[in-house]
C-alpha cells in the first residue's frame, strides 16, 4: 500500500509562490480556473490547488524542485483525454499542463526519428512527417487530440498495435525531470543503449516516477497500400470466432476491431459511414503493406468471414470511405454521449481464443446488474472495451452497479489468463484492483522502483498502487 503524502504547501499560498517562481502568466489559481482542471476523459474528478503552464524544461525542473522542497504533489496533464484518471490530482497539489510545450523539435528523416515536446498532438506528428512518407505508428482512438506525452505516460496503444506494437516499441529516448528537479536524458536515437532499460521503465509509468519533457520516437515508412473491410455477423460469437480463424490462417492484419449493435448505432449516428445497423457483431479489418498480394490476403479474409456466416462484407473503395469507417471506430467512445451521459470503459485483456465466453460473461453481468453495456474493441489483441453506462444524476446506486459490473469483468479477464488493462493505464480507476493480478511481493518490487525515483511520493500520488483510503471499500468487498 502507498503511504499518504505528507501535508505541505497548498491553496492560495501555493498559487502565490508558484506565480513568483514561474511568472504570473504560467500559473492558474482562481476557483473557476481550478474547477475546470478537475476532470479528464474518464469519471473521477479532483480539484488541483494550482495549475502550471510551463514553457520549457527549465520551468518544469524549477517546478519539480519547488514541489520537492514544499511537499506538493505534482501531476502532469497532456490533453486530458485519458481514461483512467491519470491527470486527476487526487491528493491535490499542482497540475502541470503541457499545452505550451507542443513543438516538434526535429524530424530526422534518414534516421527515421523525430524529437518532440510532450504536448505535441499524436496525429500532428504523423501529419508533419507524411510529406516524407513516414508516420508515427501508435494511433490511440483519441489521436486527433491526445498528446505524445500522455501516450508515453500511459504506454498507449490503438487499433494498429496488433501488427506494430504499442508506444513503448516506438520510443527510443526521453528527457525527464526527476522528482527533485534533476534533468536526465535516457536513451537517444539509437535503438539500444547500455545499462538498464530506463526508457522502458518510464514508458507507461503514468507520471509516478518523474515528468517527461522531451521524447525521441521512431518513425515508420507509410505502407504502400491498404485494404479496409467491414463484415457484419449475426452475433458477436461468429465475429469472435472469425478473429481467431483469421489469425489461425497465418494472417496478421494491421487491425481487427469489433463492435456490437449498440456501439454501432452510436457510431453510425455520428459519422454516417454506412455501418450496418442490423448486425449482432461487426468486424473492421485492415491489412497493409506492399500492393502486390494484398488483394489475395483480402480474399482469404473475406472467405473466412463468409465461412462464419457474415451477411455483408464491404471493402472501402476510396480513401475517403476508409477514413469515414475509421472516424466512426475511433470516435466510438466519444460518441457514447448519444447513449448515456456517463460510462466506465474497461480495458481488460484476454487470450483471443477466450473472446466468445468473456463477451457472454460481459453481457450476463450487465443484465444481472441492470446496466447497459456497449462493446467496441481491439479484437485482434484480445483487448476488450466494455462501455458500462450509467447516469450520475440518478444517484450513487447506478454508479455502484456499474462498478460491480466492472469488477466482475476484470476479475474474469485476470482469471482467463489476461490482465486488467491493455492500453488505458491503471491510474486511479483500477489501482484498487491491482491485487487481483499481482501478488504482494510483485507489487512490492514495483514499489521499490517507485521509491527509488520518487522517495517523497509526490509524483502523481494515488495512482497505480492501491491506496489505503480509496481502496478500503474494495478490499472489504473482495473479502466478502
Amino acid at each position: 500500500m502507498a503511504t499518504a503524502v505528507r501535508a505541505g504547501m497548498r491553496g492560495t499560498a501555493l498559487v502565490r509562490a508558484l506565480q513568483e517562481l514561474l511568472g504570473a502568466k504560467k500559473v492558474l489559481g482562481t476557483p473557476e480556473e481550478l474547477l475546470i482542471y478537475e476532470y479528464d476523459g474518464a469519471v473521477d474528478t479532483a480539484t488541483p490547488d494550482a495549475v502550471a503552464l510551463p514553457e520549457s524544461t527549465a520551468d518544469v525542473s524549477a517546478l519539480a524542485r519547488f514541489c520537492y522542497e514544499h511537499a506538493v504533489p505534482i501531476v502532469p496533464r497532456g490533453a486530458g483525454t485519458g481514461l483512467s484518471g491519470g491527470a486527476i490530482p487526487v491528493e491535490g497539489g499542482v497540475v502541470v499542463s503541457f499545452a505550451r510545450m507542443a513543438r516538434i523539435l526535429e524530424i530526422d528523416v534518414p534516421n527515421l526519428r523525430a524529437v518532440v515536446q510532450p504536448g505535441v498532438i499524436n496525429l500532428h506528428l504523423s501529419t508533419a512527417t507524411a510529406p516524407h512518407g513516414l508516420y508515427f505508428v501508435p494511433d490511440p482512438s483519441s489521436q486527433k487530440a491526445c498528446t505524445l506525452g500522455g501516450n508515453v505516460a500511459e504506454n498507449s496503444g490503438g487499433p494498429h498495435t496488433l501488427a506494430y506494437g504499442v508506444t513503448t516499441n516506438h520510443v527510443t529516448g526521453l528527457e525527464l525531470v526527476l522528482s527533485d528537479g534533476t534533468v536526465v536524458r535516457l536513451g537517444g536515437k539509437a535503438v539500444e543503449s547500455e545499462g538498464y532499460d530506463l526508457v522502458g521503465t518510464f514508458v507507461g509509468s503514468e507520471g509516478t516516477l518523474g515528468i517527461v519533457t522531451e521524447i525521441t520516437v521512431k518513425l515508420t515508412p507509410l505502407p504502400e497500400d491498404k485494404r479496409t473491410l467491414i463484415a457484419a455477423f449475426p452475433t458477436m460469437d461468429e465475429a469472435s470466432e472469425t478473429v481467431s480463424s483469421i489469425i489461425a490462417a497465418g494472417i496478421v492484419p494491421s487491425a481487427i476491431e469489433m463492435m456490437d449493435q449498440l456501439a454501432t448505432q452510436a457510431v453510425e449516428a455520428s459519422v454516417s459511414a454506412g455501418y450496418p445497423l442490423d448486425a449482432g457483431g461487426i468486424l473492421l479489418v485492415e491489412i497493409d503493406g506492399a500492393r502486390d498480394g494484398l488483394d489475395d490476403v483480402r480474399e482469404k479474409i473475406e472467405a473466412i468471414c463468409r465461412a462464419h456466416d457474415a451477411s455483408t462484407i464491404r471493402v472501402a473503395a476510396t480513401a475517403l470511405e476508409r477514413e469515414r469507417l475509421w472516424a466512426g471506430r475511433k470516435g466510438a467512445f466519444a460518441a457514447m454521449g448519444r447513449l448515456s451521459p456517463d460510462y466506465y470503459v474497461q480495458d481488460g485483456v484476454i487470450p483471443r481464443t477466450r473472446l466468445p465466453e468473456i463477451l457472454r460473461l460481459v453481457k450476463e453481468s450487465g443484465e444481472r446488474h441492470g446496466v447497459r453495456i456497449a462493446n467496441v474493441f481491439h479484437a485482434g489483441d484480445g483487448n476488450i472495451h466494455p462501455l458500462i453506462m450509467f447516469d450520475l444524476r440518478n444517484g450513487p446506486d447506478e454508479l455502484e452497479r456499474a462498478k460491480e459490473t466492472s469488477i466482475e469483468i476484470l476479475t474474469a479477464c485476470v482469471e482467463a489468463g489476461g490482465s486488467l488493462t491493455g492500453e488505458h493505464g491503471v491510474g486511479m480507476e483500477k489501482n484498487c484492483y491491482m491485487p487481483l493480478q499481482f501478488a504482494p511481493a510483485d507489487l512490492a518490487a514495483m514499489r521499490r522502483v517507485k521509491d527509488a525515483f520518487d522517495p517523497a511520493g509526490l509524483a502523481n500520488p494515488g495512482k497505480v498502487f492501491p491506496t489505503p483510503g480509496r481502496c478500503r471499500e474494495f478490499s472489504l468487498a473482495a473479502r466478502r
Partner: protein
Amino acid sequence: MTGILPYPNADAPSEELISRCVHCGLCLPTCPTFAVLGVEMDSPRGRIRLMKTVWEGRVSADAPAFAKHIGQCLDCRACETACPSGVEYGKLVEAARSQILAATTRSLGERGIRSAAFDWLLPHRRVLAVFARLSVTAKRLGVPRVLRATGLRGGARLAEMLELLPDSATMERLDTVIPASGPVRARVAMFSGCVMGSVFGGTNAATARVLARNGVEVHVIRPQTCCGALHAHAGERERARELARRNVAAFAGEEVDAIIVNAAGCGAAMKEYGWLLKDDTAWATRAAEFASRVRDATEFLGDLGLRAVPSPMRVRAAYDDPCHLLHGQRVREQPRALLAAIPGLEMVPLEEADWCCGSAGTYNVTQPELARTLLERKVANIEKTGADVVVTANPGCLMQIQSGLRRAGSRTRVVHLIDLLDEAYRAG
C-alpha cells in the same frame, strides 16, 4: 465568497444538451481560442463544464470568469463538427450568453451602444444603409487615422471597426419577382438580410441574377427584417425572437421551394428558428416549418446543379469555409462543386480553411486582440496559397479577411462565391 447566483431564467443552457458531453476532449484541437490561449477554460469542453458548474451551484452566473470565458468563445461551432456525440454547442453558448446578460449589469454607455446596434441599426435597413454609407465615407476620408492620432483607446477601437468596411457600400433595390430564364426549375423567396442588403447590395442582386439564369424564379419579400443572428450570438434572445417572428410572418404564405440566404451567419440562425421559438406555442410550428425551407444560396445551387455553364476565368482561387456554413449548416461540398464548375478556375488548397477568421459576428468588435491574432493566422495561410482570389460566402468573413489582406499589403482579392459566379456569367 458572496452568494452563488443560479441561472436567472428559462433560457439557461439545457442540462440535457450538456449531459451529451462526455468530456472526451476531441474538440480541443479544433477550437481556435484553445489553440491561441492553451487553457482548458477556453476550450469547448471547458466552457461546457463551466455551464455545468453553474447548474451545480459551484460557479455563480454573474461570475466575471464565467462571462470572460464564455465571451471569448467565437461561437464558430468547429467543435460541433468534431464532436462524435453530437453536442449542440452553439445552442449552449448562446444560452449561456443570455444568462450572463440577464445576471449582470452594464454601464449606461454599453447599454446605449447595444440598443443602438440591436434595436435601431440592424432591424432598420434604411437607417443601416445611411449609417453604412456615412461610415464608408468617413473611412475613405481618413477618419481612422485621425481617431488613432487621438491616442484614446476608444478611438483606436472605432478606427479598427471603420477599417473593416469595404471601400463602397451598395444598396440595390430588387424587383419583386425576378423571372427565371428558360423553363422554371424552382421558385424561391430571397432573404435579403440587413448587412447584405445595405452594404453588399450588389451581392443580393448577383444572387438573384445567378439563380434566374439557372432557371430559378426569385421572389423578393418586402416586409422582412434582420435575421437576429447577431442578437442571438450576443445573448439578446428576446430581441432575436422578435425578429424571427417578423421574418416567419413575412414569408408565410409564399408558395416557394426554398428560402434563399446568401449570408452563412443568417442562414445558420434561420435554420434554427424552430429551436429559438420552440417554447412559444403560437409560433413554434410555423417557425419550424420556415426553418425547414431555409437554404444557403450555394447549397441550393450546388444541389440543383448549374444549368448554364459559366464562362472561363483564369484565376487561382482558394475557398475559405464560413464557419456558419461549414460547422453551423454542414455545407461543405456544394460551394466547392460550384467553384469546380467554372472552367479555367484553378482551386488551390487553403490550410485551416475550416478555421474561423476571427470575424465571428461581433467578435472582432468585442474581442479585438483575439480576433486580430486569428485574422493574422488566416492571412498567413492565404498568402501561402498564392491565390488570386479568396472565395467565401458570408459578409463578416468578407470584411474581416479583406481588412487583414489590406493591412498585410496583399494583392489577393476577397469575393463572395455568388459574386464570382455572377462575374463569370456576365463575362460570357
